[in-house]
């Protein structure tokens, strides 16, 4: 029996093509992946991300606990701020990548991958006794109590405020959603609930993610759909979510990240705060940062016109003496570029942007080149 989010009925109503996504019955698309991808890049798209997990970490020692178990520096977070971070094991291998928000002075909200909720909670609970002053930390898996949606695209800021208006006579001088800065998060009234609205996303476009009680999320979905439709908003499935993040070179757990890949190997060293003090995996990550790695995650773009690259396709070096050097971990046809793109792990000597490589597709090799991220960059208007 597949799991369903609170928005399942909404997906059926919109004619979503439902598939099994890691045990969840989710829409891969509503009309077409290409159309939905295009909507996000040019106007707006709405995604159900209710399958993702929410974990509350609270108490006077919550910050210390998180700094000892996650790679980024939680001390940098004021109330109402979030950061991308990773949870690693003792070998520096990634248990998950996630977002951590400080929602109160001593309260953190972690948004984790749907496929890793059980592993993350088990890991954190496992680390909990090791935390020096464990009475000062409380952990709650509230994934089933919350739903979430992502609304992404250049036009979202034009209608987001009509979805989350600030009521007149609010206690504080509360700023509208559209004035949130990137990585800000704030509480907004919606119906009879309070919901979190964050200026974050996984598409490379401006946008917001809304985390709300499960019973409220359908009304939020409908409100955003109704408000956004005049601006070109379309409901979007997991297919477009994947093509959008691949164009940005963003990792997806299970592809670029797994327990045998470290953040340094994955190219995410920016989110590893080696100088903050001791944390799980620090020794390995520090050594990798200093001495180098044996494999590096790179983004690539096909230079030949050919079938799209896909996960597990072999990667070869180019030129005379060409040999297999790695494997594709993510690959697709880029809707924005009209060419195959992806990410792969290769030895570090092949990781420089511009390096020619070959991707083996059904027994034949096609030319590609390592590129810097993001793979797709919006053309700047002069």
């Amino acid at each position, binding site marked *: 029996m597949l799991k369903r989010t609170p928005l399942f009925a909404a997906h059926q109503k919109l004619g979503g093509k439902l598939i099994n996504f890691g045990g969840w019955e989710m829409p891969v698309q509503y009309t077409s992946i290409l159309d939905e991808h295009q909507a996000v890049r040019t106007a707006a798209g709405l995604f159900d991300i209710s399958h993702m997990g929410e974990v509350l970490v609270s108490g006077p020692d919550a910050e210390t606990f998180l700094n000892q178990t996650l790679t980024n520096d939680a001390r940098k977070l004021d109330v109402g701020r979030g950061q991308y971070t990773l949870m690693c094991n003792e070998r520096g291998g990634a248990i998950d990548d996630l977002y951590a928000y400080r929602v109160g002075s001593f309260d953190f909200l972690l948004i984790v991958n749907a496929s890793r909720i059980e592993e993350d909670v088990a890991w954190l609970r496992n680390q909990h006794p090791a935390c020096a002053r464990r009475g000062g930390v409380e952990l709650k898996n509230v994934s089933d109590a919350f739903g979430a949606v992502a609304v992404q695209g250049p036009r979202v800021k034009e209608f987001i405020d009509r979805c989350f208006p600030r009521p007149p006579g609010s206690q504080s001088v509360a700023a509208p959603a559209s004035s949130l800065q990137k990585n800000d998060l704030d509480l907004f009234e919606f119906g009879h609930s309070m919901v979190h609205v964050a200026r974050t996303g996984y598409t490379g476009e401006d946008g917001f993610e809304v985390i709300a009680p499960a019973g409220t999320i359908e009304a939020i979905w409908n409100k955003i759909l109704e408000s956004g439709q005049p601006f070109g908003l379309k409901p979007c499935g997991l297919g477009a979510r994947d093509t959008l993040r691949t164009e940005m070179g963003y990792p997806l757990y299970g592809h670029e990240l797994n327990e045998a890949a470290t953040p340094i190997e994955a190219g995410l060293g920016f989110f590893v705060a080696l100088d903050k003090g001791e944390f799980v995996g620090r020794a390995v990550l520090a050594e990798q940062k200093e001495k180098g790695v044996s494999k590096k995650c790179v983004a690539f773009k096909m230079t030949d016109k050919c079938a799209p690259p896909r996960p597990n396709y072999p990667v070869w070096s180019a030129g005379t003496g060409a040999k297999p050097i790695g494997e594709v971990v993510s690959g*697709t046809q880029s809707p924005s570029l009209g060419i195959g793109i992806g990410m792969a792990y290769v030895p570090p000597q092949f990781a420089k942007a511009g390096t020619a490589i070959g991707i083996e597709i059904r027994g034949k090799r096609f030319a590609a080149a390592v590129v810097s991220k993001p793979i797709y960059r919006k053309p700047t208007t002069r």
Partner: protein
Amino acid sequence: MTHVPPDLKYAKTHEWVRLSGDTAVVGITDHAQHELTDVVFVELPTVGRQVKAGEACAVVESVKTASDIYSPVSGEIVAVNKAAEDNPALVNTEPYGGGWFYKIKLSDPSELNNLLSPESYTAQIGQ
């Protein structure tokens, strides 16, 4: 309701055949393109290749998957649709017209009797 033209024959694997003398045109059905959605690449057989009925001879790729095309009939490939190679979306918009895959000179026309009628194919796809 997907379109199932009455003048074609069909394979269980969702290819269609249009007979013209001793040559047949082959493509994929409206049902198949609808299931695939967004065709982004088409890999066609080389002209001159001999194929047997049931043999994988082409590939159609959507954003998310690559699918093999199985030749419904045996014979020699005499033409391939370059327009579909250049513009794979034709497979979605004109599965029975501009989105055709290849033309094949039949080596055994009796194989056509093994294919499904429009009614049988319609029943198979549950319409």
